[in-house]
Structures are given as structure tokens and as C-alpha cells.
């Protein structure tokens, strides 16, 4: 009898006293997911009306946000939240399998699974071929194409009494794989067109909403392969860094979880070092500060020593320097270096016009310069060097910027 109140007290204590674990790299959920209330509300609101393309560089917290959105819609029963990562998919069928599996594993989606269709799509079994309606035809080689089976499966899905919010993660990886498998572009176009049709289908108008997210920008991939018409129905929605107050609160809660005290000054110093206030950057700095502090109270001076030890990881940082030549080749890598040098000098980064002026000597022709600048900035953005914020291009990582200033310039 006594144990029960004690256990309840403990649970209550845990609920009140939030403990955030400092988890870097892996998507987080529940108490480890901090903040983003405004973003969740906004995204949920949009998805009631539109399909969304979630844009953000890596490590911003897209996947964690998607998981949180699933939980949110499940909690308020406004929709059946479905998360599906298609990163491992390399074919259209695998994509469909992943999405449908995601649906069928939810309590609400389980009953949407129709036997023969599921079997046709090879769901839940390790079989290569299925005798379909007595025809004896091997699925791998039969016609009609896979879209028909997928259409049939989704036709069942839209009969759900509740709308489904389907959050598809890492779609650009598949799109790139399809594009690479068929240089003509026909295959990837066919897939994206089918998917667009699925989104636009009248039957799914009120029942299916999609949020597509990925580490590599889908918009960049489709632009490169001239497929932008296949995603022009998606509302572009960027996910950015924390606002400073949220970043401070995040740090404070992290510190509390580890029985540390971070004063306002130290929090500000951490934020200043991080530059772009995404959880990942804050966590990395917090982690190294914690290692340095050990049993003592962290201080601003200690932060400097901690940052120095991070910057000493020359292997990690020098990689960013070296890959410029690998990914761009000469002379574009030199142009990229000029741009990065400009952006590094100011923590707030540089404007496009300043960047254009910087490379004027290397690329005197105005039109060529504009094209070159756009292309290289695209690459630098896609490869994680720069992000655009408030009309300026800045280093995505404050640590990388600091390294650049110290060791590359």
C-alpha cells in the first residue's frame, strides 16, 4: 500500500521536474523534445488545409518535430498521425510499402489494411511473388505497374473515418536514387507525378495530408532534374533555429537535468558561440562544457577552454575545408572560399550583394557572376556550410565559422 503512493509521487515528481537528456544525433521525443510549440501549432494548422514541404538543413530537428506532430494529432484526435521514413527505400514499391506499413502500424490505421492488397504489395510477408486473383502472374514482372496496386491500397486508406496526417521523412533520398537509376528522368518523373496525383485525388482531399521532409532539399533535387511541377502543390514551410529566449530556456533545462547551473551570462555566451541556434549546436557546446566542468560550476572562462578543445578536433573541421575542392573542383572552390571567407568574418554573415562584389574580380561578367553565385551558394547551402537568415547568408555552425576564421583564413 505504501509503495503505490511512493511510486505515484515519483511519477508526479518526474512529470513536474522535466529532465531533458542531452541526446545528439538521434531524433528525440517525449520529455527530450523541447519547445517548438509555436512551430507545431503552425504546422498542424497548415496541414489541415495543405500538403507541406518541410525545409531545413540537417540537424535542425525535422524528424523530432515530425514525431512530436504525430503525438500531438494523436493526442487531440484531430487525425491519425503516421510517421514513415523512406530513407532505406530505393524503389517505388519500397516507398509504398514503407508508407503503408507506417499507416497499418497505427491503432487507427490497422483496420485499413485489406488482405489481398496488402499481400499484393508484399506487406507483412517475405514473398517475392503472389498469385493474384488466380492469374498465376508473378508480381515482380506483371503489368499493370505498381501504381495500380498502390492506388488500390490508398483507395482503401481514404475510407478512414478520421483524416490521416502522413509525415514522410527522407523522401529526397529516394528521389535521388530513382533519378540516378534512370538518367532520362522518366522514372523519377513517373513516381513524383503519381505521388502528386495521389495528393490531388478528390477522394483524398479531406482524408490525406502529407508532410514531406528530408535532409537534402527536395526542392533542390527537383529543380536540378526539372521536376518542380510535380511538387508545386506543396506549401513550403521552413524550420529554423530557436529564438534566443527558447534557446536560453532549453539550455537551462538541460543544465537542470544534469544538476548544473548556467547563469544568463553563460547561456548568452553559449548562444553567441553557437551562432545559429538549433538544438544540435546548443547540445554539442553544452556537452563539451559539461565535460570540462566535471564537478565544478561552469563559467564563461571555462566555456572558452571547452570551445578550444572542440576546435582542436582538426580532423572534423578540416574535412569541411578539404571537401570544397572535392565537391566543386577548381576554380569554383576558390570562389567558394572567397564567399566563405566573407561570411566568416561577420557572425551575422553577408548579403548576396556583398558576396557578389567579393567574387567580381574572379567573375567579371555580371550575368555569369549572378549564375555562378547562385550555383555555388546553392551548393554551400546544400552541403551545410551556409544558411540564409533575414536576408543574409551566414555559417550554419558557429563553431565551423570560428574554425574557419582561425585556421582557414
Amino acid at each position, binding site marked *: 500500500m505504501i509503495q503505490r503512493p511512493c511510486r505515484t509521487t515519483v511519477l508526479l515528481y518526474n512529470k513536474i521536474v522535466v529532465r531533458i*537528456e*542531452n*541526446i*545528439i*544525433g*538521434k*531524433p*528525440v*521525443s517525449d520529455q*527530450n523534445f523541447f519547445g517548438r510549440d509555436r512551430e507545431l501549432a503552425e504546422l498542424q494548422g497548415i496541414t489541415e488545409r495543405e500538403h507541406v514541404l518541410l525545409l531545413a538543413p*540537417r*540537424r535542425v530537428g525535422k*524528424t523530432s518535430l515530425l514525431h512530436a506532430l504525430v503525438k500531438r494529432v494523436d493526442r487531440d484526435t484531430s487525425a491519425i498521425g503516421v510517421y514513415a*521514413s523512406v*530513407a*532505406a527505400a530505393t524503389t517505388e514499391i519500397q516507398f509504398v510499402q514503407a508508407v503503408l506499413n507506417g499507416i497499418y502500424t497505427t491503432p487507427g490505421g490497422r483496420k485499413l489494411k485489406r488482405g489481398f492488397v496488402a499481400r499484393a504489395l508484399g506487406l507483412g510477408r*517475405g514473398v*517475392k511473388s503472389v498469385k493474384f486473383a488466380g492469374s498465376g502472374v508473378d508480381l515482380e514482372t506483371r503489368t499493370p505497374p505498381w501504381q495500380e496496386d498502390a492506388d488500390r491500397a490508398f483507395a482503401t486508406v481514404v475510407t478512414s473515418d478520421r483524416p490521416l496526417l502522413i509525415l514522410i521523412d*527522407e523522401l529526397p*533520398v529516394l528521389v535521388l536514387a530513382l533519378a540516378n537509376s534512370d538518367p532520362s528522368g522518366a522514372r523519377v518523373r513517373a513516381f513524383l507525378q503519381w505521388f502528386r496525383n495521389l495528393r490531388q485525388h478528390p477522394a483524398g482531399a479531406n482524408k490525406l495530408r502529407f508532410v514531406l521532409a528530408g*535532409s*537534402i532539399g527536395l526542392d533542390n533535387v527537383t529543380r536540378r532534374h526539372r521536376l518542380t511541377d510535380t511538387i508545386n502543390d506543396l506549401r513550403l514551410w521552413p524550420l529554423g533555429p530557436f529564438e534566443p529566449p527558447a534557446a536560453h530556456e532549453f539550455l537551462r533545462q538541460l543544465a537542470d537535468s544534469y544538476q548544473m547551473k548556467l547563469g544568463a551570462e553563460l547561456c548568452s555566451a553559449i548562444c553567441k558561440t553557437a551562432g545559429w541556434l538549433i538544438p*544540435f549546436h546548443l547540445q554539442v557546446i553544452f*556537452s563539451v562544457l559539461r*565535460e570540462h566542468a*566535471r564537478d565544478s560550476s561552469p563559467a564563461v572562462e571555462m566555456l572558452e577552454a571547452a570551445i578550444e578543445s572542440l576546435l582542436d*578536433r*582538426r*580532423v*572534423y573541421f*578540416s*574535412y569541411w575545408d*578539404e*571537401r570544397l575542392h572535392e565537391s566543386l573542383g577548381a576554380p569554383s572552390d576558390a570562389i567558394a572560399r572567397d564567399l566563405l571567407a566573407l561570411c566568416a568574418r561577420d557572425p551575422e554573415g553577408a548579403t548576396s550583394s556583398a558576396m557578389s562584389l567579393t567574387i567580381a574580380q574572379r567573375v567579371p561578367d555580371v550575368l555569369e557572376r549572378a549564375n555562378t553565385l547562385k550555383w555555388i551558394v546553392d551548393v554551400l547551402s546544400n*552541403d*551545410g556550410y551556409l544558411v540564409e537568415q533575414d536576408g543574409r547568408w551566414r555559417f550554419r555552425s558557429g563553431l565551423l565559422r570560428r574554425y574557419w576564421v582561425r585556421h582557414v583564413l
Partner: protein
Amino acid sequence: MTLYNPHLLPRHDLVETFVARQPLLDDLVDDLRRGGGQHHLLVGGRGSGKTTLLLRLAVTIEDDKTLARKCIPLRFPEEQYNVARPSDFWMNAIDALVDALERQDERRAAKRLESALAELEHLDEAERARRSLALLESWARQATRLVVLLVDNLDLVLERLAADLWGLREALSIDNHLVVIGASSKLIDEAIDYQSPFYDFFHVHELGPLSEAEARHLVRSLARRAKTPRVEEVLEQDPGRFKALYVLTGGTPRTLALLHTVLALDHSDRIERDLDGLLDQLTPYYKARFDDLPAQSQVIVDKVALHWHPITAAECQLATRLDLNTVSAQLTRLVKSGLLAKVSLPGSAKLGFQISERFFNIWYLMRASRRLRRRLSWFVEFLRIFYGEEDLRRRADALVSAQPPDRLDSPAKFLAFASAISDEALRRRLEFRAIVLVMEHEITAIREVMDLEGEDVHLAPIIDRVRALREIRARIAKAKVQWPAGQTSKSAAEVISRHPILSLHHKESIVHLIEAGKPPNLVDGFDIAPWYSILGVRLVDTIGSGELPALADITTATEIQQIIALAKPGWEAIAEVATAKELFGSPLDGEMLRLIRLMPDGASGLIFAASLVLEGNNWTRARYLVSLAIRKTSTDMDMEDVAMLVAFLRTCIRKGRAKEAAELLAEAGMTERWAPLYEAVCAIAEGSSVRLDSLAPEMRVAALELFEQLRKPEGSQIPDDSIEATRSSEPPMTNLHAASSHKPRKHKRSKTLRSRAGSNPVQISAPRRMK
């Protein structure tokens, strides 16, 4: 202690010997206690302690009751060579889980898993991977335990699963009670590449070198365990020695563990052998590190290691003859891997590269050097770092002074010490001993073992000279000659070959004469014995051995300095150098003359040489030597210099050059300060003392006396007071004071010198040096 295979270490020993990396272990354990949501990657070079840390973590989990209830550690083989597909990895994990359960006596659970695993064998890859992962997740869920995958060489696994990394990432991204704590010898590209699935996925811990305090703690612990109290004593009493060990090992735990007993080595001569043995133990480890490198990196590392001291990229490029971009890229990569370190070069803005773990460099030198000089340089560098410069010098001194030499001392050892010693004279002696040993052992392929076009280029003339002298002795010994009484071919060979004045060319000419049956009389002029007292025993013996050239063979200012440094102090040696060159060799050039002039007693020596040159009727040259000697020094000539000058003037007068002598004194500014002398010489030139009558009385007396003395025949000494009187008596009190306080040195001239000064020094016709 098992250093290369920590898996073989008994549990108790693993716990007892784990002293480095404790803070990191604590962090990992703390993370697991808090739920284990974070995947970790330990990155460190070979010997940094990654595998040991993983094993120690496993033991910590198992030994902690609370943690053992929450987690189960899975130990994988160090290299999972069987992994080609995702299913292989997950099935390896289940195998490891079965082992872990059996260790914990959960045999039923282990058996169930084994059976389930067997059912998956016949499935296709996709299904097998899915089901094996599901099996693992299912077990973890049911057991409510976190499965901790301790994956060594994670880079190897990821490389093999390159086509399936997104799938692996997905599996590790969901909340399925799996956590990976991996280890890798280098930072995995997949963990850094922005486009890679595992970009910034792991919490990376770099296992760098231990700090000095950590290293000391480790060594102390090892010493206690190995019961080597001497090591503990050295730690307490000789912190410098530990610091040297720390520098040599680069703070690498494995190397520290292997080599900590070096601290117990004493200063005895056994150290070379003991150290040799220790370094042998490192061979598997270091060889593996070297063999791991790609071919081009090996080329670079070879040059850096052989260079020993920091080398710039440009120097490395010259040595390897690779493209500079390639060299730079390789150097950068090697720095990244930790094998090389970038260091500042003193007095330069450039950076140099060196092997970061100095013991690795020492090991490499030990194995890689063909050249004698390099063969034992590893040992010498160890001594320098470990014992310091003083001890190194002491050993070098003992080595070169040992008579007879230790039969185990090889030429390589002498050369190695020579390279390390900054004392030039000692270095020369060491190099010479090496040359002698090489020749004694008849190492005919001397060019194979010495880099006579590279770092040993300065030894080439010495080798040639020693060879030539040996040949001279051999030829004389073989010559069928009737020697005069009291002489033998052996004594003749010694006298001729060891003569400190005669050039090699001259000696060879003498050998020709001997072989032609016309041996010279070796008593008069060839006797070496007088030279010992003029030049000093050290110099005569050094020249006789061939270590330094004979005085007539001097060609460089360095040789002059070396000879004067060894010679007996005083003007005689300088005089002999100058004379030998003027009479038997090619005359000294301006630079060498100026060098001699600057030496103590240099002026006296030059003036003496000028006297002898004048005896040979070469007024122009004699004048030049004297004017060089007395120019600008007329105010600070000491009594010795003046005596020498007066002797020269006598020779001038005897040779009918009084007028020219007077002009010489005038040009040298000696007309006033040295007025009595000048006036006396002028009067002699005029043939009468009339001009002296017009001098002031105190000056007239001195001048008249000098007038008489200078005209006296050869052989008569000029009294000291006359020499004192050569200087003007102004102010008279100063001069008297100077005269009363000065104690002139006895300018003793040996019989040889006097005879040389008065006679034709060329006893035999010496063929002119061939141009």
C-alpha cells in the same frame, strides 16, 4: 600483461590495469544510467585504449547490479570480417546476445534466441535483416533492457554496409532499446560528411594522448602491479626522466605500458641492449601501424622518420620527388590521423612535420637505416631525449677516449654520436674514429655505408687523406731500398707519412724518389720530434693520423681554426701554419690571413712567416704579410710582435731592402709612435747615422742603439731593452712605467726555427703543385 589483445586479459586484470580514460568511462556509464539514448563513437589511433575501454565498459555494466538489470553489453569480435550485409550485422548482434546471456547463466533465453536465429538462415536478405533486427528488438522490449552494442572497428562495419547505411540509421534512430558504442581508429567520413546518413549522428569522443598527469598515474599503477619499485623511485626522484618518456611515447597508453620499464634502465652500457630488446617488443604494433598506411603515405612517413627533425613540405617533396600537391595532401592526412604532428620551426614562420610518437620514430630509424650514420641514430636520440645533452656528451667523450676501443663499438655508433653532438672538436674526433674503424674492418664498399654525397660529404676529404697516408706507408714499406744507418722502411714510413708540415703531394713525391731508389736523408728537416714541442703533441698526432691535413695542405679557414685550436698556445704554431703554406703549399688567401691575424699571436706568426718568405727572396709577398700583420696595430703591438718585427727588419737589411723596409714602416703609420725604430731603419737605408743627430736626445740614444743592432750579423740577439726602446718615449713617465712593469716573454727560438730562418728551407727539390 596483454597489450595487443586485451580480449585475452582476465577480468580481474582488465579492471586492475584500467587507469587511463576513467573520466570517459564514467561519462559513458552515466549516460547509460540515464537511459542510454545516445549513440557514441570513440575515435583514437592504435594503442590509444579504445578496445580496452569497450571491454572495461562491458565489465562495469555487468558488475553493477543496477546497471546490469537495465543493460546488457554485447561484445563483438574486434574485426567483423563476416559483415557484408545488414543481416550479418544483426545476426552477429544476436550471437553476441546469446553469449552474454550464457555468461549470465540465462541459458533458456539463450537457447530460444539460438533457435530463432537458425530459422532465419534460409530467408532472403531483406527478410533476414528485418527479422533478425526484429528479434533483437523484441528481446530487448520483453526483457526491458537496453542492448549496448560495443562495436570495435565500427568504420569497417559501416564501410561494408555502405549501400545500406540509411536503413541502419533508421534502425538506430527509433526507440528500440538499442544503443551503439562504437570505436574507430579514425574519424569516419560518414560521421562528418553532410550528405551521409550518419552525419553528426554519434557523440564523438576523441581518445587523444594522455596528459602528463594521466600518463604518470598510468605508469605508477603499472609499476606497482609489475612490482618494479625502481620505476616508482624514478617517478618521484627524477621527473625529468619521466617527462622524456612521456615525450617519446607521445602519451599513447600502449606505448607507455610497453616502455615504462625504460625508466628503470640505468646509465650503464647495457642500456643499448636493453633498449634494443624493448623496441623489439614494439615491432608488431609499430609495424602494423606502418603497414596500415597506403603506399604513398608510407613513402612520406619514411622520409619524415629518417629526417628525425621537423621537415617542411618542400623538403619532403625534394626527398620523395613526388608532386608537391600530393605531398601536402598526404602530410595533411597524416597529421589528421595523428601519426604526424605539425611543429613550429625555430626562427621561421614555416611549420615542420615530424612523427608525433618519438618512440615510433626511434623504432623506424632502428629498422630502416642502411647508412652507418643512421643505423644507431635511434639510440643516440633516445639518449639525448632521455638523459639529456650532458649525459650524451659524457658518453661521446668516453666512447672516443676509450683505449682500446670496445670491440662492440661499431662505426655506426661513432657516427650516430657525432650527429648528435654539438661540440665540433668532439664531433670531428668521433667521425674520425668511425672512418678509422671502417678502414680497419676493410669495409670496401664505403660508399654503401656512408652518404659521401649527402650528409657525410665533409668526410670525403678525410677518407681520401687517410687512404693516401696508408698507401704512402704501404708503398714505403714495400720499396726495396737500402736505408741509411739508423733508418728502416718502417721508421721512414712513419716519419714521412706523419710529417705535420709537408703536403700530401710532397710526401708522394718523396715516395716516388724512394721507389726510384733515392731515399732522402730523413734526419735533417724530417725529424718529427722537434715538432712536438713547437706545435704540441695533440696537433702533431692529429695530423699524423690524417684527421687533419698537414699544414701545407690547409685549404679552408675551418681547418686553420681546427689546427690552431689543437696546437700548443703561442705564435710558433701560427707561424708554422703561415710558413708551411707560403713555402710548401699554396699561399694563404686574404680571408685566411685575416683570420690568422685576428688570432692571439697571429701578428707574430705572420711576421715570422714573412721573414722566411723573404729569405726565399719573395719581397712582395713578405711585404704583404707584414703589412697585414702590423696595419692598424702599430699602437697595440706587444713585445713579442715587436721582437718579431725587428727580426724581420734585420732580414730586410741583410737582403738589401732597408729602403723598402722604411717605406713599409711609414705606410704602417710607424713614423711617430715608433720613431726610434723608423729613424734607425731610414738611417741604415741612407747608409749613415747622420740623420739621427737631429733627433731629440732621448730618441737619438735609442735610435743609435737600434742602428747598431740592426746591422749586426745574423744570430745575434737584440737586447730586450733595445726592443723596449723602439717605441717613442712619450710621455716619458708612461714609457718608463710600461717598461718597468712589462716582463717580456722569452721568445725562445728552437734550433729548428733558427736554422729554418737562416737557411734554405727547401732541402729537396719539391715539384711545384700541379695546377
